């Protein structure tokens, strides 16, 4: 089964994901792909608790293909912190054709392109790459919200 939803959110698994998206998507499993979380036992534990009733796996970028293959019969909800990770995954051969940007929050050096989306130069480069690969990219924090055309917003900003 293909990845059902691929979400970019710098908070990874949190209320919007568990309470807002999961009842809509009904995934069999959440997968967090994040090198920092994958490398830290107690970070993994925090997110496992945060996932509440949902099964969750945590992997590094280099381990993502293995984990996705391992659970290929399941409906998967992949969550990463940044578009840069999506680029890394695609370059490793993981087929990603659509991405939902759920939250990229303000930090130093970032500029706003939508209410819940702030980007730096690395993000811009990543989005541009994804656009070039014909990956559909939309901003949507909650399932029922109107999608934001990220590439259009980047052109305007």
């Amino acid at each position, binding site marked *: 089964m293909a990845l059902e939803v691929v979400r970019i959110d710098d908070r990874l698994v*949190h209320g919007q994901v568990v309470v807002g998206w999961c009842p809509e998507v009904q995934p069999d499993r959440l997968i967090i792909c994040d090198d920092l979380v994958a490398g830290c036992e107690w970070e993994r534990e925090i997110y496992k608790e945060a996932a509440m009733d949902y099964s969750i796996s945590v992997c590094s970028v280099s381990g993502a293909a293995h984990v996705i293959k391992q659970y290929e019969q399941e409906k998967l909800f992949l969550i990463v912190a940044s578009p840069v990770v999506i680029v890394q995954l695609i370059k490793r051969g993981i087929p990603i054709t659509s991405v939902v940007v759920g939250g990229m*929050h*303000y930090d130093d050096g970032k500029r706003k392109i939508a209410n819940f989306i702030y980007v730096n130069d690395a993000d811009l480069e990543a989005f541009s790459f994804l656009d070039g690969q014909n990956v559909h990219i939309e901003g949507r924090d909650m399932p029922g919200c109107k999608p934001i055309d990220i590439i259009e917003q980047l052109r305007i900003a």
Partner: protein
Amino acid sequence: MSKKIACLVVSHGDIASRFVAASAKIAGKCDDVHYLAEKDYSPSKLREELMTMLHSELSSDGLFIFVSLKGGSYWNCAMRLAKEFPGKVTVFSGLNLSMLLSFITKKHKYSFVELAEVIISDAIRGITKS
């Protein structure tokens, strides 16, 4: 000597400020109760804000962080601090007024560890079904 245990209420929208205001109406203003107004913080910025409070003189004997939702982004962030600073930070989810009032009225009577147990007990005792 008065203990320097602070509490920080962190939640979505106006919840934190409203809870603190409500507790002040009932128990009077408490200088050890603080809240963080919601902003579009990244997880790293939020962590900076929590660290500022943690390293404040106000919380030299410990910091309690009260959040609404277990598994929410504030809880995730606060839990990292609790893991990094065991014995100095305790995180409570399921924020309610009983929890906050327990802190305000009992903070001088107990140690950091004991107070945490008292607060969770009072918070749960405040949830009933009739």
